């Protein structure tokens, strides 16, 4: 294992993860809002924001799927050392990380069951850009309407039709993060 896998985690886990979680919770509760999170220095191609999300939410109880270019030795070792999360394929994961093209098709991920809709995957989507423009979002958590630069629209519309089942998304870019739960209407 290279020594870079041993660095770049939280230096003060309790406080840093508390700050990160609050921003992630605000993002999930208010779809389309942008938040900055920091505290991790991960190996490429993992962004800082995606790394903080993984450090805050993942441990040995959460199977993680590394999609496409994300599935490299550097990221595998870093994630293993800092979270201990087991790696798995898309069909059994709780969290998946990757770019939008690498993550597809969405039908591969667990969407929960009608009795346990919470047993669904959360996809962490690494985006080349992330800002408050593009697709229009409405639904719970949004007062009137919000805007977010989504990689596409149709996939999120069909995900919405699965409610209460479905996938939840966290979009990351550098230190930035936004979220899109299954309840949001996208147009």
């Amino acid at each position, binding site marked *: 294992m290279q020594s870079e896998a041993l660095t770049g985690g939280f230096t003060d*886990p*309790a*406080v840093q*993860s*508390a*700050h990160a*979680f*609050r921003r*992630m*919770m*605000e993002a*999930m*509760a*208010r779809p389309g809002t942008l938040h900055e999170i920091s505290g991790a220095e991960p190996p490429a191609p993992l962004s800082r924001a995606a790394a903080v999300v993984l450090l*805050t*939410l*993942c*441990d040995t*109880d*959460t199977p993680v799927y590394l999609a496409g270019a994300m599935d490299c030795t550097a990221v595998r070792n870093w994630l293993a050392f800092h979270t201990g999360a087991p790696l798995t394929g898309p069909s059994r994961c*709780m969290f998946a990380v990757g770019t939008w093209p690498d993550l597809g098709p969405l039908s591969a991920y667990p969407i929960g*069951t*009608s*009795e*346990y*809709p*919470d047993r*669904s995957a*959360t996809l962490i989507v690494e985006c080349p850009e992330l800002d408050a423009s593009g697709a229009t979002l409405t639904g*719970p*958590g*949004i*007062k009137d309407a919000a805007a977010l630069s989504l990689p596409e629209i149709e996939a999120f519309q069909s995900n919405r039709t699965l*409610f*209460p089942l479905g996938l*939840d998304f966290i979009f990351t870019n550098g230190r930035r993060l936004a979220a899109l*739960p*299954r*309840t949001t209407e996208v147009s």
Partner: protein
Amino acid sequence: MSAYNFAYLDEQTKRMIRRAILKGLAIPGYQVPFASREMPMPYGWGTGGVQVSAAVLTPEDTFKVIDQGSDDTTNAVSIRTFFERTAGVETTTTTSDASVIQTRHRIPEEPLQEGQILVYQVPIPEPLRFLEPRESETRKMHSLEEYGLMHVKLYEDISCHGHIATAYAYPVKVEGRYVMDPSPIPKFDNPKLGDMAAIQLFGAGREQRIYALPPYTEVVSLDFEDHPFEASKAEHACSLCGAEDSYLDEVIIDDAGGRMFVCSDSDYCESRQAAGHKGKDAA
């Protein structure tokens, strides 16, 4: 302070609770199972709310706890002290100064703002539990959206009492999908649940469930066209501050049937009195 991890719980427990909170926000009104821990207080004293608060608090937060609206009761004082000692957070009794408010059975009178978080202590999270004791069945009923039984219960209220007599823990439907128990808040508070600017989180420790309402979520109290929902309160003004729009507690003051009505929200009542409002029994 240094004897505890920040906010008492270990990090793995907090991650588990945080994952449950995020799924709860993504599926408003659905009860997410979580592995509730033993807390240094008995079940029924807010162990669910305490665990949710511990998972969301940051050192910069200002924390308020109310029990039936009051900042001064044993439950509120002990939970406030618990987080002062284990998280080192500032505490307050002023609603507008608080960033996280843990509550037992009330929503503060003062409207909450964006950035605030309201954490409810929930004894029985399952609204159908007293109608159907089996968890396997209630889970199936939620999955099939089979809520006829709840309407039958409200109808029985009408046939027995002439009106819907359910006065607290009044069932609501969230975003047209899940029927949810808003915890034993008086039905007076039900209209505040929907379209609230703050995030609402519900924690049931003994029953091991977390659920949530994101801001600006549609929450409808169940009713009938000919018996519409009505938010009720005692037909009095507060004896201390004169408020006519707040939820009132009835207090017995002597052995001769004497009684007074006072705001259940102690902060609301005190700030009104400080602003010069006076009720009929004000000193």
